[in-house]
Every structure is written in structure tokens, then in C-alpha cells.
């Protein structure tokens, strides 16, 4: 029917340059020109500029090489030797998509820009900072006694580990790190191990859900809640405890705490066996994780990875054994390492670490000494409540400690401990006043997410979810 001079054919031919989809933007453009700021007030600028992954067309070959090297953390020579996957595709074959910041499997507000060719991930760049609230700056306004409330909120899945690192750094500066009463030290170990268990249990939940084992989500949260219930009995809060403080603890363990711990120790073995049935032995689970997100020991070390990621590559490195702190050198436990550096190893290590932590908790329970729960050093410890009623000085002392805080000698110290995700470090520089001059938390998640581009390279989009999950980042700690 149609002839050459059919107007419809002409129109299609002439619209060759115009986008094939979309509506006519002329009216909109005219409006925008008349009101240049009209959209800006309703649509805030969310572009992160140079922080974002760039299009291939915007990069020269050298830039790309440098960027691949940067993202993969390799030297340029290594990146060049690697070539690009697969043979430098043309730009019209690839696309850059955002995964996050509002994506359920990014565990918070992690934003990944992925360059995809079909289902294959060519490049990946994590963009962070969406949860940044300047907690290191805030720490400079808070006294050492208040600082615990701040650091406990950083990596919110291991609050007690953060508090422990902060307290130990403060004690190191005060020079009282060798004088903390035995009972306080052992309670700290007890809580640190329980915290590792609760954190890994949550990992079991989220890892299961990310990979489609949705009921695992409920089971993991259920078991974690048992641990948090114990924390609530001890500290008064499920999370953000501010319980471990410079000089000791906020309070002694409550009566009946042994029953709480024993309840967890009785409950978990059976539940962990159920996890094995549900996940570890399942062919689908293994297919989904084995050989996915592989990282080698040298890569992991170069990237600064610590914790289960480093151990999954076979490197035996656990600060509890290798640079012991508290009384870990008196306890009997194993360091679990993997051999392949894949997602399955990281899963299996965390599951085994829950069991190791239970072993530790059982030993701590047996050996828990009696005594004081905080150092009797008038400088850092407020007087007992009973003294306040009878002594004016005690009242003033109490008031001064809580208003002015205590002064910490000039100097700087770094303390790194083994948190659930790797080395949690606290660096404090003091100018001799009652607030830290500078407080820096070395958060394991912040360093570990650098591994993501490396693990994802050449993998499938579906595996990207498994990889993020296996790194177990906590964005509260990443962004601080």
C-alpha cells in the first residue's frame, strides 16, 4: 500500500537522528529556558561528579588502564597485562547502571556503579558517603567518657567491638592499660565474643536472604535476637550499648547472667546444625557460592583486607592470636581459614567462627574471675553511688567527671583489635585536654569494600549480590 511519497515513511526517515522513544520536549525546553531554576528546587542535584564511574568514551586508553588499575588496585603494568574484559567492548555494547544506594542487598546505602555487557560485570566502582555524619569530627567535641556513645554507633552491628577499641586506645594513652581489673577484662572478652556471634548470625540471615534462602533471614534474626536479649539484660540496650568504657565497664554483670549465657550456648549448636542442613550441604547453595567472587591472598593483602576476607584466602591472620590483647592468649581456640577465597569460604568461615566463639564463651564462663568491674583510679572512675550521699567531695568529683571529663596525657596511640569484620582500630591523638584532639576509627568495612570491584570483575550481575553479601559491609562503619 505504501508508496515512496507516503508522508508517514518520510517522517520516519527524517526522524532518524531523533530518539526513538520519548515525547516531544519542545514545550518543556521552552519552559526550562524561561525558568532556569524551576527544576533545581524540586530535584536536588544528586550527581557525584568525578566520584562516579566514567563512560568509556570519556576516557583515553591510558585513563582506562589507570582506572582499571585503580579500581582493581593493581599497578598499571599488571592492568595492561590483564587486558580488558572481554577485548575492550564498544561503548554501545555496554551500559553503566547504578546498584543502590537504595538496593536491599547493598546492606544500607552502598552505591555501586556497574558497567555491564549483557549479564557480565566489566567494571564496578563503589560510591560511599551517603551515611556520612562526621562522627570523627563529633568525637572531637565529646569527652572520653562520652566518646563511647559516639563510636558505638559507627559499625552498628559490632558496637561493643568499637567501644572496646576506643576504650583500649584511651587506656593506652592514660597508661592504665595494664591495670584494668581481671573481671573487667574477662567480661570484655565475653561481650566481644558474643558480639562476634550476633554479627555473624546476622550475616547468616542477610547472606541467606540475598541468595534466595528467605527463611534463613528469619532464622538468623531469631538467633541474633537471643544474643541481643542477653546484651539488653547486661547493658540495658539491645544495640549502642556504651557499656565498655575507658577504665572498665559501666556496670557489673547482672545476677543471673550465667543462665543467659548458658541459654545461648544450649540453644545455638542445634540451630547451627539446622543452618548446615539448610545451606552448607545444599547443592543449590554451593553452586551459588563456590568459585564466585574469588580473591587471592596477595590481592587481599594488597587491598588491606582483614578478617574473614583475608582468612578465606588461606592467610592465617587473627589479631586475637597473632597480636593478642585482653587475655586471648590464655584461651584455647582455632583460627578458621579457607583455601579458595570465594564466597563459600567466607560463608563457611563465619559459620565456623560462631562455633569457635561459643567455645571461647564457654571457657570464659568457667574462668570468669571475681573482683571489680572497673579500675579504682579516681582520675577516670566516678565514686560509688553510696559515697555521694555522705561525702561532699565525692559529689563534686562525680559532678566534675561527668561535666568536664578527665584529662588524658598528651600523645597518640593506635589500638587495633579483631572485630567480626576485620581489624577495628582506633587512633587517638590527645593534646592533654578532656576531649580527643583527633579520633579516627579504622573501620574494617571501609577497607574491605575496596575488594568488591576485584571480586566482581568478569562475574555475573546475579553474583554481584552474593559478592556484596560475602564482604558483609556495614555502611554505618564505612561512612562514619
Amino acid at each position, binding site marked *: 500500500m505504501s508508496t515512496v511519497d507516503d508522508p508517514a515513511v518520510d517522517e520516519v526517515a527524517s526522524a532518524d537522528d531523533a530518539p526513538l522513544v520519548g515525547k516531544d520536549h519542545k514545550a518543556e525546553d521552552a519552559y526550562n529556558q524561561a525558568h532556569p531554576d524551576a527544576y533545581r528546587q524540586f530535584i536536588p542535584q544528586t550527581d557525584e561528579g568525578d566520584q562516579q564511574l566514567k563512560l568509556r568514551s570519556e576516557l583515553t586508553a591510558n585513563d582506562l588502564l589507570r582506572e582499571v588499575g*585503580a579500581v582493581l588496585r593493581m599497578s598499571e603494568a599488571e592492568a595492561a597485562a590483564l587486558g580488558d574484559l572481554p577485548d575492550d567492548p564498544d561503548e554501545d555494547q555496554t551500559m553503566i547502571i547504578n546498584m543502590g544506594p537504595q538496593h536491599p542487598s547493598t546492606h544500607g546505602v552502598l552505591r555501586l556503579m556497574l558497567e555491564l555487557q549483557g549479564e557480565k560485570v566489566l567494571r564496578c566502582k563503589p560510591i560511599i*558517603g551517603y551515611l556520612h555524619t562526621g562522627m*570523627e569530627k563529633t568525637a572531637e567535641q565529646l569527652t572520653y567518657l562520652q566518646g563511647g556513645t559516639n563510636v558505638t554507633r559507627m559499625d552498628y552491628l559490632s558496637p561493643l567491638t568499637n567501644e572496646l577499641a576506643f576504650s583500649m586506645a584511651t587506656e593506652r594513652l592514660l*597508661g592504665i592499660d595494664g591495670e584494668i581489673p581481671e573481671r573487667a577484662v574477662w567480661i570484655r572478652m565475653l561481650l566481644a565474643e558474643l558480639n562476634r556471634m550476633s554479627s555473624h548470625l546476622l550475616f547468616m540471615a542477610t547472606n541467606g536472604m540475598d541468595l534466595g534462602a528467605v527463611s534463613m533471614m528469619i532464622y538468623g534474626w531469631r538467633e541474633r535476637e537471643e544474643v541481643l536479649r542477653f546484651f539488653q539484660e547486661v547493658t540495658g540496650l539491645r544495640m549502642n550499648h556504651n557499656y565498655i568504657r575507658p577504665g572498665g565497664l559501666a556496670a557489673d554483670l547482672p545476677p543471673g547472667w550465667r543462665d543467659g549465657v548458658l541459654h545461648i550456648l544450649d540453644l545455638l549448636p542445634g540451630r547451627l546444625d539446622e543452618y548446615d542442613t539448610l545451606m552448607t550441604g545444599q547443592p543449590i547453595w554451593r553452586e551459588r557460592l563456590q568459585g564466585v567472587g574469588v580473591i587471592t591472598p596477595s590481592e587481599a593483602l594488597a587491598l588491606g583486607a582483614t578478617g574473614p576476607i583475608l582468612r578465606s584466602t588461606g*592467610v592465617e591472620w587473627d589479631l586475637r592470636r597473632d*597480636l593478642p590483647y585482653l587475655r586471648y592468649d590464655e584461651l584455647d581456640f582455632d583460627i578458621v581459614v579457607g583455601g579458595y577465597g570465594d564466597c563459600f569460604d567466607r560463608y563457611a568461615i563465619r559459620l565456623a567462627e560462631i562455633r569457635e566463639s561459643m567455645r571461647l564463651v564457654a571457657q570464659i564462663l568457667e574462668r570468669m574471675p571475681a573482683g571489680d568491674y572497673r579500675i579504682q583510679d*579516681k582520675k577516670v572512675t566516678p565514686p560509688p553511688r553510696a559515697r555521694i550521699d555522705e561525702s561532699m*567531695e565525692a559529689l563534686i568529683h562525680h559532678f566534675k567527671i561527668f561535666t568536664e571529663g578527665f584529662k588524658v596525657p598528651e600523645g597518640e596511640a593506635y589500638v587495633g583489635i579483631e572485630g567480626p569484620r576485620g581489624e577495628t*582500630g582506633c587512633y587517638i591523638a590527645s593534646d592533654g585536654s578532656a576531649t580527643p584532639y583527633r579520633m579516627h576509627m579504622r573501620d574494617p568495612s571501609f577497607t574491605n569494600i575496596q575488594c568488591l570491584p576485584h571480586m566482581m570483575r568478569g562475574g555475573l550481575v546475579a553474583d554481584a549480590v552474593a559478592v556484596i553479601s560475602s564482604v558483609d559491609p556495614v555502611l554505618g562503619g564505612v561512612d562514619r
Partner: protein
Amino acid sequence: MSDIGSEPESLHEPEVVDEVARVHDCPAVVDRGQEIVHVPRDRYVEVAKALLDDGYSLCVDVTAVDYLEHPQRPLPAGIEAERFEVVVNLIDLENRRRTRLRVQISDDEANIPSLFDLHPGTEAHEREVYDMFGIVFDGHPDLTRILMPEDWVGHPLRKDYDIGHIPVQFKEANA
């Protein structure tokens, strides 16, 4: 009167910062049981490389301190205090030891070579230090802000950066 007034006897004097050795020809001190190597800026990468060869293969942390309000601090002889200090924490896995590098950086020349080629894992840490302190890492492959938005003005962890506040109005209470 024992509770307040006089300084408690148990106030611990910091260990005397005295030079114990020279690590790769840089003054090294042990303070509070931790080894600290004070590295001049122009030998920073060289020393980091030498330490890497010594076994310090894991760079756990790079951070900085702005000593604007606290210029006088104990430093070994030969090291002049500057406004900024870049602090690098290294671990030797084989021998199970830590060391810490401190590098003085002046305000008007706030730049330092990047450790990226030695320890690629410092990439994010150096970006963070750049973002928070404005210290430029020469040779860093992707020196952009990391935590703050791209169009942010200023470097928040500098001491002369105003923390800002919201004015609070106090109203007269009705008695």
C-alpha cells in the same frame, strides 16, 4: 578532700619519648609500647618501600591529624613540627609486629606522594584524608572526594573548619 583538689597520685606520666633507634635512617621512638617512625616527607615512599621489603606487607590505615591548635608536641630531634601529620599504620604478618609512620606536612605545601603503587589498599584511605584534610596525594589514580558530596566546599576535619550550629532560642518560661 582526697577526692578532688590535688591531682590524683595515679595520674600516669606518659613514657618519656626518647629515641631508641633509627629505622632506615629515620628517627624511631617507642611511645607507650608502640613503635613510631618519623619520616621526612621526601623520603616517605622510599621508607615505606624499605619497610615493605622488611615484611610490613599490610597497610591497615592511613589517616591524618591537623595540629593547627596544638603546634607544640614532643617530636624527636631533627623533625620539625608542621601543621599536618599523615599517620600510616603497617603490620608485618610474618613477625607479628606493628609500626607507625608519622610524616610532617606543612600548610602551604599540603601534598605528599601516594602509597598506591606499594599498597593499593590505601586508595580509599588516601581519598578520605584528601576529602577531610585537603592533603593532596601525588600520583593517586583517582583523587576525588569520597565521603563528602563532590561540590562540598572545605575540608571538614581541619581545625579551622567551622562545625556550624543551629541557633537556639530560649523563651521566657511562664512561671
